[in-house]
């Protein structure tokens, strides 16, 4: 096995919503070209932590983050950091498919367009095609690229959102419960896709579905009430967890 490179080094991160602390002193290392799953009961802070990685929490006025998160040894919590640049490196897929009410083509082309990644239309066409192919959607939509992105099925929409996220050529893809609004078949497709994508990208996925975490991830982090309880190889977490809380959660005793 090749040596695991660290992509994200999370050190001593605390997150506050106003006076309420949501994340307590989390230390974590995310390895490159792996799928890392965040599991835990609702409200445990896993989504909050995920949203720190592309600074989406900045949108919430009362949210304060402290500590350091190093992405390729650059601290992304630095106030002076350019958010536009960060977000091209760290793409995000949301819980509910949220394609823009524009054509399928425009949805994928939006990121490259605003960042000026493409010199001309043919290059843009290429990027769109490549992204849609990587998202496993090309064959289904290639004949109707001009139809609205909101007109395809939920599973297709979510894969469109993945295509949109990878069109800007990020290093890391954050997925916030990407399958919670999908049926089992669409979920399976997205999970397959994650296995494909991790060859080129580092993926962090928040999920409520323990089986999914077990199926797709190399590493799993279990959170409870804002604390990182346990982090390790998925196999170990699911077969022989060190902590009782982890054991209780994955066996369904609470949560």
């Amino acid at each position: 096995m090749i040596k695991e490179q660290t992509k994200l080094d999370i050190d001593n991160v605390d997150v506050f919503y106003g006076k309420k602390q949501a994340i307590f002193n989390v230390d974590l290392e995310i390895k490159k070209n792996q799928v890392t799953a965040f599991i835990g009961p609702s409200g445990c802070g896993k989504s909050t932590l995920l949203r720190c990685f592309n600074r989406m929490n900045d949108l919430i006025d009362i949210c304060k983050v402290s500590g350091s998160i190093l992405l390729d040894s650059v601290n992304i919590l630095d106030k002076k950091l350019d958010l536009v640049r960060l977000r091209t490196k760290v793409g995000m897929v949301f819980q509910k498919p949220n394609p823009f009410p524009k054509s399928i083509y425009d949805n994928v082309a939006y990121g490259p367009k605003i960042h000026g990644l493409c010199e001309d239309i043919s290059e843009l066409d290429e990027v769109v095609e490549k992204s849609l192919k990587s998202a496993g959607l090309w064959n289904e939509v290639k004949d109707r690229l001009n139809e609205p992105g909101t007109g395809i099925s939920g599973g297709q929409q979510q894969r469109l959102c993945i295509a949109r996220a990878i069109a800007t050529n990020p290093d890391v893809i954050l997925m916030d419960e990407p399958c919670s609004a999908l049926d089992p078949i669409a979920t399976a497709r997205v999970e397959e896709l994650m296995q494909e994508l991790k060859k080129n990208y580092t993926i962090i996925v928040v999920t409520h579905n323990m089986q999914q975490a077990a199926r797709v991830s190399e590493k799993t982090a279990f959170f409870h009430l804002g604390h990182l309880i346990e982090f390790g190889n998925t196999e170990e977490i699911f077969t022989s967890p060190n902590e009782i809380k982890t054991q209780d959660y994955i066996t369904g005793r609470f949560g």
Partner: protein
Amino acid sequence: MTNIDVLEDKKDKLIAKRYSKEKRFILFGRLAISLTIIFLTILLGSIVLRGISGFTTTTITFDVNLDKKLIDPESTNDKKIISSARWRKITRDSIYNVLNEINLVMNGEVLSKAEQKSLVRLFSRSSEYQIKDIVMDDLSLIGKTINVTLPAASEVDQFLKGRIDQSLPEDDRPLNNIQISWIKHMVDNDMINRTFNSNLFTKGDSRNAEEAGILGALMGSFFALLICLLISFPLGVMASVYLEEFAPKNRLTDVIEVNINNLAAVPSIVFGLLGLAIFLNVFNLPRSSPLAGGLVLALMTLPTIIISSRAAIKAVPPSIREAAMGLGASKMQSVTHHVLPLAMPGMLTGTIIGLAQALGETAPLLMMGMVAFIVDVPQSITDPATVLPAQIFLWSDQPERGFEEKTAAAIMVLLGFLLTMNALAVFLRNKFERKW
């Protein structure tokens, strides 16, 4: 056993009660709707019944002898001299001539002075000016006899529309017996005809009902609304975008929000006073002008536009903003590329509703001097003007019968404009509304 029966019985009663409650509620709802429809029908019906005849008018066709001696004896062709000719005498002489000819054929005698005086009142008082205008447009007509079709006096129009009660004693009637018999006679001779009232749409206000039109008021309303739109739409949209998307949520913005909501409820006359104090007294904008009036209407419309625009922006799902931000779009890009296009139908609807409200507003314009008797049709935003509702208000105050149908006709035109604007709002909303 009996216990269960009693319980079941109780349940049945309760269910029956719930059903009858629902039935009663539906009944009251239907009653309310039918009452509204009835009142609306009565209101619209009475306006249409009164106003529809205002769209037609009565004209008199007769020959005018443009005597060169009276108009331009020295053949100067100078418009100044021609314009100061004795047009009243020219008109009257021609009218007497026509009437006497008819009388000679009918009764074999010439009309008496008193008869002539009362019969000339069947013609519009404005006839002399209209004949003058015809000649001024074409000087070659001088010395000829021309056949003109001019509006009849408003009383003739009202008589033919059946609004003058012939059973009243002669002294209480606007038309005496001789006049009435002559009207009937002229109708038989095809001298008097009923035509479409083009004056209504091509002329400004006038003291003579047969001459009065709403073009001046229409143009005034148009200019005022244009100013109102140009000022309140961009300001309102920018204010709402800033408040909704960029402004920090703190006490100051809370105070601003509360104040905007309060402004929407301020009586419109207060805006008029504000406009009087600021636009007229401080900035010295021309009084009675659509510019000043439009500014006041803009002040009044602004809160409506801001509130509806904010609601439209709020209705854009946050997931769209997140998606854009997640792709690295700046706040500005996420607003201009995604939020604004999605919120636009709502904003446009709010704007049009606000403008429709402004179109029907009289009170604030009262303070700006726009509720005034203004004959000339305004050509620009600085000309003195009045607006449609003000015109309606002014006409409704006139004692002459002829203005009654004009008032109702003008209301119909105003309602037509309001309906068109609302239809446009619905159309825009349906056209640009995107589903997601």
